[in-house]
């Protein structure tokens, strides 16, 4: 009972603020609603006892990425509409992509309905008190089974970071 209230609260907030995000004119307002969406998703993770995922979502997406988003929005004036956004080609492309994604979603739901008991829309809560502590499990699986992908990802990030530094330096030297 209470669980579902909490769930629907978070889910509702997430969907609503996602809607508000795409409809706002003001870029900062959009960013604020994106933060709200991310936070309510994090709330759902917490409800599912995926604490590590919850905190990763908050620290990385909200605390890290979104701060940078806002930072950039504040520095660059976005209230001036860029001409390429206005071009009809873009609009049609956007509408097309939206339809394709929507169609995919419908298709998946449609398919899953065909297989009884495997419905995507049905939430099948696992008794939370019987869950093992997921932080440790996550760490164990990351550093044992998924070690190679993990390391590859790390190297990739390192390369990206070095790239960013190099680009930043170059820019400073050539005014």
């Amino acid at each position: 009972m209470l669980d579902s209230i909490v769930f629907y609260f978070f889910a509702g907030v997430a969907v609503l603020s996602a809607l508000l995000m795409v409809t706002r004119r003001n870029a900062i307002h959009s960013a604020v609603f994106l933060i709200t969406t991310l936070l309510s998703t994090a709330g759902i993770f917490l409800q599912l006892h995926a604490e590590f995922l919850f905190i990763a979502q908050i620290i990385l997406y909200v605390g890290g990425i979104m701060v940078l988003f806002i930072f950039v929005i504040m520095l660059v004036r976005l209230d001036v509409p860029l001409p390429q956004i206005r071009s009809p080609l873009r609009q049609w492309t956007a509408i097309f992509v939206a339809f394709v994604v929507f169609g995919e979603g419908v298709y998946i739901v449609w398919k899953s309905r065909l297989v009884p008991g495997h419905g995507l829309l049905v939430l099948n809560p696992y008794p939370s008190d019987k869950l093992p502590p997921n932080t440790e499990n996550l760490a164990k699986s990351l550093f044992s089974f998924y070690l190679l992908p993990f390391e590859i990802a790390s190297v990739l990030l390192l390369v990206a970071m070095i790239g960013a530094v190099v680009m930043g330096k170059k820019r400073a030297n050539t005014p």
Partner: protein
Amino acid sequence: MSVLANTVHDRTLQRPDTILGADELVINMGPQHPSTHGVLRVKLKLDGERVIGSECVIGYLHRGVEKIAENRSYQQFAPYVDRMDYVSAVSNGLGYCEAVEKLLMVEAPLRARVIRTILTELQRIASHLLWLGTHALDIGALTPLFYCMREREEILKIFEKYCGARLTTHAFRIGGLQYEAYDTLEKDVERFCNSFEARIQEYSDLLTSNSIWIGRTRNVGLLDAADCIALGASGPVLRASGVKWDLRKATPYAAYDQYKFEIPVGSNGDTYDRYMVRLEEMRQSRLICLQAIENIPVGPIMARVGKVLKPPPGEVYHAIEAPKGILGYYIVSDGGTQPYRVRIRPPSFINLQALDKMIRGHLVTDVVAIIGTLDIVLGEVDR
């Protein structure tokens, strides 16, 4: 004239090399801002936080002191000069009185001059103390301000005992002094000087070797000797750039020729050097006071000047080493009871001119430190 009015200061508007190519930000520092020391307004052109140009807008406190002088008698005008650099009113008064005395071709008696020297040096300490406290506050050190105020209070008490006023003292009169030194003046000054040595060490301990302080002041607001002289900057600003020039030694006035003291000079011409120079100047002023109270000559305190001053026609320029720099008075007499023209050479006004050169390329943060290090008083800048 209208054509000229349109040619804005183009030097400040030169297109800079911006790093990100982003818009420059024009920020108005002042006239209401916690650290512009009054109603100074600086238009800063920023690239990020880096200053790429600036323009000072002054005059918010303009009272037309020079015009007032032309409509007052010589004695009546004397209190007005106290209101220019209101944190060193005694020095202003000294300069004015001596200038008029020169115009009248009289000289104050020795006793008067010695007492003037004592009070002026105390005023120099008080002015530097106020500078130190506010400058440190600008750079973020909260505590020195209160220590400095405590010391300054001692000095102001001496002034109060001497002439009844603390800030705008009008301590001196043309021709000498109106008031005889009160009984315990020597004792009060001595007590102050004795405690001051340790106190100044205390401020020095707080700041001089503090690495944040050094980081904030070293190489900030560099001004070399040639620039200083070209821009007319004087006083501690000039001396911090390595020019050993102090009017108290170069053209001694009052009773400075009787005392031994050193002229501290810096080498770098940065904010740190100016700090060190002023700190040392306070120590030297203390020494002057101690020497002076040892032997205050007896005698009259007022030269014989008439009730109505009518200097022979002519003109005179007299400059003294005020705490902020050279304070000059150029007085023209037409033989009447009122000065025909009084021109005041205000050290703050002319030192402030160096601001633009000093802040270019620095961060906004440094602007605050540099305004502080120039030690300006807007009452004197705007007059």
